[in-house]
């Protein structure tokens, strides 16, 4: 049985959530700063994820800092930038082994929390600026990262389709910002962004592990005391129906084409009522026993992969597939045919029953991983509706076949994105 997560306010706009479970051998402490995603600030905030991990006043040297983490049993400091809806999230996490497994009885929770606090609150900013050389190295990395997004063609195709569907909504911006944005950042603008982040961002702190979270809670309660007013988490703009289909083709040097279809699914239901559309999407293409997998991939061999996913936050369904160039038209037709079948209720009860079983399995497994648990609860907090995996299981069990069909009938095709090679091979120059 899973322990419930305990979330309590720590300061203005700052919450601390703790989930203790003796089965974990590690403790993971994360601080998520949540800000509205905006073109003009996205790159500065993304830079902070790179700059703050380089050192702090008590340990300004990057090499010495890494050595400190080595001595803390290889404590892993990881930083990340996420996007959930129209929110940009700058995350800093430290994971290390539980105190039970130390050789010398060290208090690792306390030491890691202190280190993380110092990195976040005492950055290497002097006279309103980060060090220019260090900044330049990190900015180059950010630019490379943005340019390298194209390396993973499957992810690139999905991101492009999402961007096209957003049509200017902040939720369709890239999480690291644009290339132009990255080029415009300066050591001063990043330093200013740090002040805004510390003073105004929404902050969600998580402690997940077998250890005692109270040391970490105290450290951050002190750090965030006397904070100005909090910000609200932003919901994305929901487009309930597609009025027409926009088509976009991009040419690159690829051996296999990527086809991504983006659909609207109606108004976003409250979390407790999302089970029907989630189940509809899973029956269509969410599991290895789904219609897309079995019919389009396995029976007709039209795609190497073909899967559907639903975004709870934007109420969008995406179907992404990897296809041989010659099969693009046939695959598209086959995918849409499966969707028509779903809308018409042409799926058997067993398929639905088995899909529910698989979804329940996935929901029950959330509690087995600290990372998955954190991801689950952070998303719930940003959606503004706290629910546990168990509640979601119960909601799934109540969904009827009619609910699935009704949900499927609200699905409309909005965007078709194709990444392919020009006939005769070779990439486009653009």
């Amino acid at each position: 049985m899973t322990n419930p997560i305990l979330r309590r306010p720590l300061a203005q706009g700052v919450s601390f959530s703790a989930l203790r479970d003796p089965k974990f051998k590690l403790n993971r402490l994360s601080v998520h700063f949540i800000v509205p995603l905006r073109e003009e600030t996205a790159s500065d905030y993304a830079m902070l994820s790179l700059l703050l991990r380089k050192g702090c006043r008590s340990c300004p040297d990057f090499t010495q800092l890494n050595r400190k983490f080595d001595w803390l049993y290889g404590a892993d400091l990881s930083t990340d930038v996420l996007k959930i809806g129209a929110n940009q999230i700058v995350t800093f996490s430290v994971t290390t082994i539980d105190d039970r497994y130390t050789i010398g009885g060290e208090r690792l929770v306390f030491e890691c929390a202190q280190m993380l606090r110092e990195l976040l609150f005492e950055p290497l900013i002097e006279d309103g600026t980060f060090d220019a050389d260090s900044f330049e190295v990190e900015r180059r990395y950010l630019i490379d990262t943005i340019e390298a997004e194209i390396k993973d063609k499957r992810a690139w195709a999905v991101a492009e389709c999402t961007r096209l569907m957003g049509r200017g909504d902040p939720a369709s911006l890239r999480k690291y910002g644009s290339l132009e944005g990255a080029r415009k950042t300066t050591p001063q603008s990043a330093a200013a962004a740090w002040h805004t982040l510390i003073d105004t961002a929404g902050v969600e702190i998580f402690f997940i592990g077998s250890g005692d979270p109270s040391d970490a809670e105290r450290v951050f309660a002190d750090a965030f005391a006397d904070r100005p007013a909090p910000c609200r988490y932003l919901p994305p703009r929901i487009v309930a129906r597609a009025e027409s289909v926009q088509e976009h083709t991009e040419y690159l040097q690829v051996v296999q084409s990527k086809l991504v279809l983006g659909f609207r699914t109606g108004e976003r239901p409250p979390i407790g009522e999302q089970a029907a559309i989630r189940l509809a999407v899973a029956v269509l293409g969410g599991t290895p026993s789904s219609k897309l997998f079995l019919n389009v991939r396995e029976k007709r061999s039209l795609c190497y992969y073909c899967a559907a996913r639903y975004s709870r936050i934007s109420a969008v369904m995406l179907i992404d597939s990897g296809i041989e160039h010659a099969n693009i038209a046939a695959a598209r037709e086959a995918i849409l045919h499966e969707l028509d079948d779903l809308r018409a209720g042409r799926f058997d009860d067993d398929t639905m029953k088995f899909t529910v079983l698989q979804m329940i399995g996935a929901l029950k497994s959330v509690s087995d991983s600290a990372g998955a648990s954190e991801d689950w609860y952070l998303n719930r907090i940003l959606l503004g509706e706290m629910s546990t995996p168990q509640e979601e299981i119960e909601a799934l069990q109540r969904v009827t076949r009619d609910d699935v069909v009704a949900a499927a009938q609200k699905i409309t095709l909005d965007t078709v994105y194709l990444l392919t090679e020009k006939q005769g091979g070779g990439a486009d120059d653009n």
Partner: protein
Amino acid sequence: MITETVSSPRMDGEYLRVEHPSGLTLMLCPMKGFSGAYALFSTRCGSIDDSFRTSPDQPFTRVPEGIAHFLEHKLFESEEGDAFEQYAKTGATANAFTSFDRTAYLFGCTDRFEESLEILVNLVTHPYFTEQTVEKEQGIIAQEIRMYDDSPDWRVFFNVLCALYHNHPLHTDIAGTVESIREITADLLYTCYRSFYNLNNMVLAVAGNFDPETVVRVCDRLLTPAEPVIVETRPIDEPPTVVQPYIEQQLEVAVPLFEIGFKGKPGSYRENLLSQAVGEIVGDLLIGEGTQLYRELYDEGLINATFDSEVLAGPNYLATLFSGESHEPKAVFDRLLAGVRRLQEIGINLQDFERARRAAYGRYISLYGGIESMAGILTLAQFADFGAYELLDCIADLTVNDAQAFLRENFDPDCAALSVIHGGRHD
């Protein structure tokens, strides 16, 4: 039935090692508090096993590249249909993979464990292929191969192995080539299956939320004892030298990718796997984030946060690899070689060693904390003949002299190679 309990006071954990009368070894680790169970049924048949025999009197049978992976795909299909369809009825998540040295079939579940285990055991022990199904699979796998041909991460890795190894099948793609898989027939698959999928050559590892008695009961019910077999693979005549110190390819990347490999001197399977941790520690001491060399390269913009290292260890190979993104991969290679020579000359500092060892200790502890990684360790422990907790004890007992020896023997600058993937228009 011989049952042995292996426990670790250090980790406060234990598992059972059962020699089932069928010949199969069971490695069973119930883990309290977990919702899920994870089962891994593996055979010692990987992509490097391209030539084998089961009796010293026979000649070696040579099979097409990619056959182990092909067999994995085909075993997922039975007369009753696709394995995914069968697992769908129990709610389990299933998959399979082929690596250099093994093929594994797996599932994870939170309910109906026994039914899922029955599916797993049945699918692995009941091969079903016809010429028609083999032909269809050739099309599917050819697509998979083409997808990997597009993947810069995959290519940079295999290219470095091509540069390091003359004759070792390590350098051939795990899935084979579009041409080699065309030679695969149902008969060849059965030949391969009968040799490698003997229960004496296999292990079933389970970790998480399950009762060991259930596993034994399913095995009693479904498994027929197999005659003991020793599968001998062809001896590989691999010189210590590299094929070429540099290899490059052009693919769509924004920043060039690189992979640097040091060809090590392999010992036995057990020795190679147990030396993995010391190899990682040495890699960390050479160019880990706590070193001066890392700092210099990082500050000069020659490497970035994607830089990583790993030790590739298996039955008859041992190599240390360093990978990342760089606009000047050759400069990274030269500086790393200089760093190796310098450390070999001045020797490893004791305090640095202790620091790197402590970090490795923490990293390894995390492996025992997840059901998937635990099942993976249990499998390797059986194949390579070590105790699953021995890995951690090894790190605790390591000395700086072990690290010095690894550095001396497995980091010859003349036995190193650099693989680079360039982007089209960017450089």
